[in-house]
């Protein structure tokens, strides 16, 4: 069932339609949150908040827009808010990342991908927030510059320059891992 049908059903009061939306996007949203926040618990809270906010606002959602772009925007804003709140209190951004529930290939691959993920997530926390948001949407979610511009409410030119700067900083942080 496509997104338009799910939204139409939700607007007609079918609660199961919202469950289908959550099931369809929960992995992508959670993955985005984990790369933005690093900590699995914070990511889970942020992903959950994202869907609660989406549920509140879904009745006003225009079918002209893309649901996943809209959800990504909510998730990204929730992650940025979460980081700001955390940085106002105490922060332990360099803490060891927790094990993540993920599809598990071979042990070697798993070890390799876990090591790479840890290095990537660690490096992401060291670059400015705006650059992190942009590069995560590009590298982790594989979105186009236009889609990223729409989600972050910036121009495609700004996306282009932020991605270049983010990669430049990440290259110098991760050079020894290549």
């Amino acid at each position, binding site marked *: 069932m496509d997104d338009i049908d799910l939204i139409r059903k939700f607007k007609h009061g079918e*609660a199961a339609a*919202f*469950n289908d939306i*959550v*099931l369809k996007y*929960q*992995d992508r*949203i*959670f*993955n985005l949150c*984990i790369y933005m926040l690093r900590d*699995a618990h914070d*990511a*889970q809270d942020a*992903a*959950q908040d994202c*869907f*609660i906010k989406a*549920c*509140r606002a879904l009745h006003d959602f225009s079918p002209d827009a893309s649901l996943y772009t809209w959800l990504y925007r909510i998730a990204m804003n929730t992650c940025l808010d979460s980081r700001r709140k955390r940085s106002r209190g105490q922060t332990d951004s360099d803490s060891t990342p927790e094990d*993540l*529930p*993920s*599809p598990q290939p071979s042990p070697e691959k*798993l070890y*390799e*991908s*876990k090591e*790479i*993920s840890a*290095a*990537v997530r660690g490096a992401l926390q060291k670059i400015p927030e705006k650059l992190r948001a942009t590069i995560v949407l*590009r*590298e*982790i979610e594989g979105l*186009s*510059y236009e889609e990223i511009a729409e989600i972050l409410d910036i121009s495609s030119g700004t996306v*282009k*320059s932020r*991605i*270049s700067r983010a*990669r430049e900083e*990440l*290259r110098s942080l*991760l*050079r020894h*891992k*290549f």
Partner: protein
Amino acid sequence: MKCKYAKKLISPYIDGELTGAEINQFIEHIEVCAECRHELEETKDLSRMFASAERASAPYGFNTRVLAEVAADKNSWNRLSNIFRPFFVRAAEAAFACIIVIVGIISGSMLITKTATPANAVEIRTAFHLDAFEAAPPDSLGGVYFAITGAPDEK
């Protein structure tokens, strides 16, 4: 193409965001510039690193927890509206009652003003006056009481 400009095109080139003419110019430069070629390779390595990083899945039961939170969220909104609902209903009832009384007084007053002639105006107004009611008619229990006790009859 100068290196400064070519370096700006590395990311859009990898991401497939360059136009045909730009791609050709960029490739021509990369073929002759070792420094830019090295930077391009490093950026490609970085992208490969992202691609091989593990993708996290939402924890088991995530959707159930979201739905429970959504239900709790809706209930809290309903509770909030229930707290204020009786107040609004009562306020509306009181306002409606006041309007009815005011309309009654105004229409009654207008009725007297319109129907009364100079001759019977005094009679009508007297009819509404409390003095028109006899406090204790002589054949009533009060009248008998006053007759026995000899209370002064004001009438």
